[in-house]
């Protein structure tokens, strides 16, 4: 990684990336802190970063960037350099540390889990959540807890013939629904020609967002962090 490459990457980063990710890649408007990103940490020579830059993540608001390879290499060098700098900062680091998220009461969180939150109607600390705190920590765990956007919805489509087709929800807007069946086959229909039901487990999390107090969130975090 040459200083020249990092510098030109920094210049490009300011123009194209800094509004969302911050000038130092530590987070800005709407975009995540790249210096704490798992994807960046796992990137070798751009193998993880470049596909995200080239193709974007439209569902998350990350646009695609049509840039020459030399610019992309410079961007990758700059991002890694910033991540290294941030990680080597001793104490008082900006952003959210695991230690910041330890203010809750685990017992109160457990009560919420089995009580008001009704978490136990879908989850079990010895089932799907067993060892969750080993797999996810800090902000990553909290964001998954608040809204697990990675959880796929399922759809059952009833065709005019009465035949039903089910699979993973692949697309939905006002006019079109689509699924991917168990063989990976993509099929779509006009919404006005079929009936369908969607089972989206993540929506129960969205429904809770308006009910939590901040203490509920902190207590639940404390409880989840005991599940090792």
């Amino acid at each position, binding site marked *: 990684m040459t200083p020249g490459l990092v510098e030109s990457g920094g210049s490009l980063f300011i*123009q194209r990336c800094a*509004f969302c990710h911050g000038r130092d890649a530590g987070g800005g408007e709407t975009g995540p802190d790249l210096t704490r990103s798992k994807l960046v940490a796992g990137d070798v020579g751009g193998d993880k970063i470049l596909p995200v830059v080239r193709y974007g993540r439209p569902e998350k608001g990350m*646009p695609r960037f049509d840039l020459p390879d030399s610019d992309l290499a410079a961007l990758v060098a700059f991002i890694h350099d910033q991540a290294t700098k941030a990680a080597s900062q001793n104490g008082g680091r900006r952003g959210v540390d695991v230690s910041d998220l*330890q203010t809750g009461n685990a017992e109160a969180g457990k009560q919420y889990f089995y009580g008001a939150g009704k978490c136990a109607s879908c989850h079990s600390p010895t089932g799907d959540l067993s060892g969750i705190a080993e797999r996810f920590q800090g902000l990553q765990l*909290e964001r998954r807890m*608040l809204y697990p956007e990675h959880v796929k919805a399922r759809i059952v489509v009833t065709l005019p013939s009465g035949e039903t087709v089910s699979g993973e929800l692949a697309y939905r807007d*006002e006019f079109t629904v689509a699924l991917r069946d168990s063989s990976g086959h993509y099929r779509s229909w006009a919404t006005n020609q079929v009936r369908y039901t969607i089972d989206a487990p993540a929506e129960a999390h969205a429904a809770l*967002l*308006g009910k939590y107090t901040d203490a509920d969130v902190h207590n639940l975090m404390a409880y989840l962090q005991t599940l090792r």
Partner: protein
Amino acid sequence: MTRRWSIFVPLFAAAMLVALVVSPPSLAQGVDSAMLLHPPADSWPGYHGDYSGQRHSPLTQITPQNVARMGLAWAFQTGQSGQLKCSPLLVDGVLYITVPDNVWAVDARSGHQIWHYRYPANKGFHIGSRGVAMYEHWLYFMTPDAHLVCLNAYDGTVRWNIVIADSQKGYWTTMTPLIVRNHVIAGVSGDFDNLAGFLKSIDPETGETQWRWDSTPPVGTPNATSGGTTWMTGTFDPALNLIYWGTGNPTPVLNGATRPGDDLYTCSIVALNPDTGKLAWAFQPSPHDTHDWDAVETPVLVDGDFKGKPRKMLMQASRNGYFFVLDRTNGEDLLTTTFGPVNWSLGVDQKGRPIPNPDKEPARDGRLIAPDEGGLNNYRSPSFDAKTGLFIVDARPSYGIYFAKPADGTFGWAGADYGVWSTSVLEAIDYQTGKIRWTHDLGPGDSGAGALTTDSGLTFTGDAGGNVLALRTADGKTLWHAGTGGDMQSSPITYELDGRQYIVTSAEGVLFAWALPEATAATLAHDHRSSHGVNSTSGRPR
């Protein structure tokens, strides 16, 4: 006297000569004050169309009955990966559109390129460009490094280029200036540093500064805020001679400790005299903001009844989740209500301003906040439909988590926040009650399209999946749609040329013009002229 003539005569003669040589041979007139006050049907001469910010058109060729037959008239490809986020400008049959560092002139009849201007490479934030302003035949274009460039609308050549703010300090610009008579009123962006927000009025001929209004005290004033940027185009009431402008969030952004109190005039709606920049009044949608909720959303001007009394009103669906109706003569609050999930306030004070809950300020262990940083509304243009009394806004119910701790400091962002969940809905708000008369689901995630209404009772917008939608304004029912294959980040406009009404929308780097089939439009235009007596000399009804 003699001396005056001796100067004047040669100048006058020279001016006549220049006029003879450079006058365009067409009927093209460019933009003047009369056009801006009453935009003709074949124009869209300012960011909002007219000065009111209503984004409402009197055009009626496309109706709820025939909109199902609407189709693509043409598309224009910028060939750029940067998204179109501009409101196209239309004058004399030519559309002007922009992305950062780029301006195109496009024939509004055919969609073909007339010229393309490229601003030199620069290190500013290339986050978006909301379009150009026009005065006579000059265009005014703001750049990522916070310059204002004046271009000749005929060929895209540069007339002058001035610095509005110092991009080295952290300013950038994206907005479309507002033209009021001979004032080019330009705002700035930049909340990554502790900087003063301001508005400048620029002389359209010379580029000289006529006045400057600062939103906040000089940076470094003890216990005072900085910030209050001015990054969206304001509106203008010619009778009151006031411009209305929204200001951005305070800085440091998420940490309010160093800026106790209300932090005037950040997150405010201000009324200024366009000739002097003098403040007439201000109303603050978000006192002491700590969530990045700029109050720059379009201040829509409406004259009408409010609870039985005729009023000159200003309405804003603000980023913080509140909808406000103000008396725009004095800034008095008439109505304050939420238009989606809001959990950060303790209620509303006697002046109609939300009272921020100190327990919802960003904290080390996080605070769950509705709406999130992107807000319940943002740059997306709303529309006001007078017939139904509906304020139509592309809303974004959302939750985010906000963090701040001493290590985050007191400069710039000074904290961290993360979106948790969001969805998009078009809402029709009854301005007299604040009640939501109908909502139209626009899908999970974000829709960047604003709304346009027309006198025929149609609302044009887009959903989060990239569909352009035509809805019935009365109830929000979908009457027509088309997939554009991309993210829509600009608000629709409409115009009528050669008897054919066009709706113009964008997706990614492509501009689309929609219209009824040519034959249908021609028949309707002919009927329209006949029924309005334009052809009445023939005396024969058709």
